[in-house]
C-alpha cells in the first residue's frame, strides 16, 4: 500500500515569553510519527491538550512545524513556503468541528462551495456552477439550497456544506476534526454514514480526530492515541480498543460511559491532569500511571512494536513482553 502521507518526528513547540516569568515551552506536538495509507481511515483520539488539533494544523500546513518531516506523496512539505504549498493545497482538506464558525455567514451555499474553485482560477463559471450542484447533491442537499445562507440551515446541514466545500477540488485526504461533536446524536449518525459513503465512492483517505472513542471505533481502521503531544499507542482499531496496552489507553477506555456497564468503583481523589511538565526525558503519564516505576522518568520512551502493527510507548509494556 502506498503511503499517502507520512509524518516523521514532527514537533511543534510554542514558547511563551513572559516579562516576569521564566520562558515556558509548550510542546504541543512532541515527536509524532505516523503514516496514512490510501483508502484508510486513521483515527486520532485524545483529550484536551493532547495536541490533536495542532497536529491537524500542521498536516494542513496552516502552521509550520518546529522540526520533523511531513511527506505528502513522498515530498517533504514541512518547511515549504506558501507559494510552494499552493499547488498542493487541494490534496488535503479539512472539515471543522463547529458548524457555526466554519461557514462565512455572508456567503450563500453556492458561494461557499464554489470558493475553492474560484481561488484556483482554473474553471469557467458554468463549470463551477455545475460542479457545485453536483457536490450539493452528493452530500444530500439540493439545488434549492444554493441561494440560502448558513443561518437558514440546521447544524447537520451545515456540516454537509462543509463536507461539500472540502470535496470541491478533489482532495485525496480529508481531515475530519471532531466533525460530529457539536451535533445531536441522531444527526451524527446521518453525517457519519455520509462520510463512509463518500469514502467508498470517491476513494478518499481520512484522518478522523475525536475525543469520542465510540465514534472513532466506528469509523476508523487504525487509531492513534495521543497524550500531551505524543502518540502513546497505535494500531488496528480492534486491537487498540479491545486489547489496549498502554495504561492511559486503558484509563481512557475504562472511562467511556457505555450503556449497561456500571461506573467503576475507584478512588475518588483528584487525579492530577497536568503532565510531568519540565521533564525532558521520561513518560508524561507518570503521575497518573498505576504501573509507574522510577525508570519511567529516566529513560526516553519511544513507540515500539509490541505485536504486528500494534505499537505502544511504555517501558513496562516493553519489559513485560
Amino acid at each position, binding site marked *: 500500500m502506498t503511503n499517502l502521507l507520512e509524518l516523521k518526528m514532527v514537533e511543534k513547540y510554542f514558547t511563551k515569553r513572559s516579562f516576569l516569568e521564566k520562558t515556558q515551552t509548550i510542546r504541543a506536538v512532541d515527536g509524532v510519527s505516523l503514516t496514512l495509507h490510501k483508502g484508510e481511515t486513521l483515527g486520532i483520539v485524545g483529550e484536551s491538550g493532547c495536541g490533536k488539533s495542532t497536529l491537524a494544523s500542521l498536516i494542513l500546513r496552516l502552521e509550520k512545524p518546529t522540526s520533523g518531516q511531513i511527506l505528502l506523496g513522498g515530498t517533504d512539505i514541512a518547511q515549504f513556503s506558501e507559494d510552494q504549498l499552493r499547488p498542493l493545497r487541494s490534496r488535503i482538506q479539512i472539515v471543522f468541528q463547529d458548524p457555526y464558525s466554519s461557514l462565512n455567514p455572508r456567503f450563500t451555499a453556492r458561494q461557499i462551495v464554489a470558493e475553492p474553485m474560484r481561488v484556483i482560477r482554473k474553471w469557467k463559471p458554468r463549470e463551477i456552477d455545475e460542479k457545485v450542484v453536483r457536490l450539493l447533491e452528493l452530500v444530500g442537499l439540493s439545488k434549492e439550497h444554493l441561494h440560502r445562507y448558513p443561518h437558514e440551515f440546521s447544524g447537520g446541514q451545515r456540516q454537509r456544506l462543509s463536507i461539500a466545500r472540502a470535496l470541491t477540488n478533489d482532495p485525496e485526504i480529508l481531515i475530519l476534526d471532531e466533525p460530529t461533536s457539536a451535533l445531536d*446524536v441522531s444527526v451524527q449518525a446521518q453525517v457519519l454514514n455520509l462520510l463512509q459513503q463518500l469514502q467508498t465512492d470517491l476513494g478518499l483517505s481520512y484522518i478522523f480526530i475525536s475525543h*469520542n472513542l*465510540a465514534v472513532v*471505533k466506528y469509523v476508523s481502521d487504525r487509531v492513534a492515541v495521543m497524550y500531551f503531544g505524543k502518540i502513546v499507542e497505535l494500531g488496528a482499531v480492534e486491537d487498540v480498543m479491545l486489547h489496549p496496552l498502554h495504561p492511559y489507553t486503558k484509563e481512557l477506555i475504562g472511562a467511556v460511559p*457505555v450503556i*449497561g456497564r456500571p461506573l467503576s468503583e475507584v478512588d*475518588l*481523589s483528584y*487525579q492530577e491532569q497536568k503532565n510531568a511538565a519540565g521533564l525532558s526525558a521520561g513518560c508524561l503519564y507518570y503521575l497518573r500511571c498505576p504501573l509507574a516505576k522510577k525508570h519511567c522518568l529516566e529513560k526516553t520512551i519511544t513507540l515500539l512494536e509490541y505485536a504486528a502493527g500494534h505499537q505502544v510507548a511504555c517501558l513496562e509494556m516493553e519489559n513485560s513482553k
Partner: protein
Amino acid sequence: MKETILSIENLTVDLLSGGEIRRVLHDISFDVFPGEILGLVGESGSGKSVTAAAIMQLLTGGNKAIVGGKILFKGQDLVNKTPAQMQAIRGKDMAMIFQEPMTSLNPVFTIGTQFVDIIRTHKAITEKEAIQHALNMLKAVHIPDSERTFQSYPYELSGGMRQRVMIAMAQSCSPSLLIADEPTTALDVTIQAQILRLLRATVKNSRSSVIFISHDLGVISQLCQRVAVMYAGEIIEYGVVETILQDPKHPYTKALLHSIPDFSTKSRTLTSIPGTVPDVQAVMTGCRFHPRCAERQEICSKQKPAPVTLPENHHINCWKVSKER
C-alpha cells in the same frame, strides 16, 4: 404511594422569543423520590434545560411562562411562590450545577469569596465559620489543596476542578434536590468519569435527590436509577433505566439507541433518524414524533397517544404500544 421530593404535574411552558410565543413544554409529568438520581435525556429542542429552569423558577418571563400544571416541591407548589420565597429555597433546599463551569463562576472574585457569600446568604453564621465550612466542603469533594483553591480565581483552575467547586457550593447547604444540567458534557472523558463517581458518592452520603440532565445515554445508564426520555417538549418514555435502555418500547428511544455507535460490540451500521426535530412553533396534531417514526400508524397523526403503563412504573406515550396491549 411513595413520598416524593419533587412532583411535576402536567407542566406546560410557553416562552416568548423574537416576538413570538413558542410552546416549549407540553404537559409533562414526572416524580423524583428521595435519595434517587433521575435522568432527563433528550436531544436539542427536547426541553430538558427548560424543565430545569422551570423547576428553579428561573425562566425568562418568570411565572407567566408557566401556563399550566404544578411543580410540587416537598408538597408545596412552586408556581405560586413569590420571587422572595423562591430565593429562600434556591441555593438552600434546591441547588443547580451547570454545563459550563467557566461561566457559572464569577471570574473577578476568588473561589473563597464567592463560596462564603453563598453560605452566608442562607446560613446566619460568622465569616470565620463560613470559611471553615467552605474549606470542609472543598475537602469533601476531594480537592487536594483546599486552602490554595479557596484563594484561587476561577481561571486558575481546570474544568474538572471548577466542577468540583460547583458541586461543593451546590451541596454546601445540604439541599434536598440537586439539578445537574449537563455537568460533564464539556469535560474530557476521564475527568467526566471522576465527576460522575463524585456525584454518585455525594448523593449517597447526603441523601439528596438529583435530576441529571444529559444527551448521553451512556452517562445516564451509569449514574441514574430512573430516566425520562424527552422529545420536542414531551416525555415519551419514563421508567427504570435498565428496562428502558435494554428493552425500549417507544420508537424514538429505539431509534436513538440504534443511532449511537456502541463501544463494546463489533461494528454494526448506525441507523439515523430521518428528518429533524419539529420547529418549536409548529402546531402538530397527534404524536410529535410521528413524521419521523418508522412504525407510525394512521391514528398517530390525528390524536395524541394515551399514556400506557407497563409493569414497574414504565410509562410510554405511543399508539403502537398502546394497541399491542
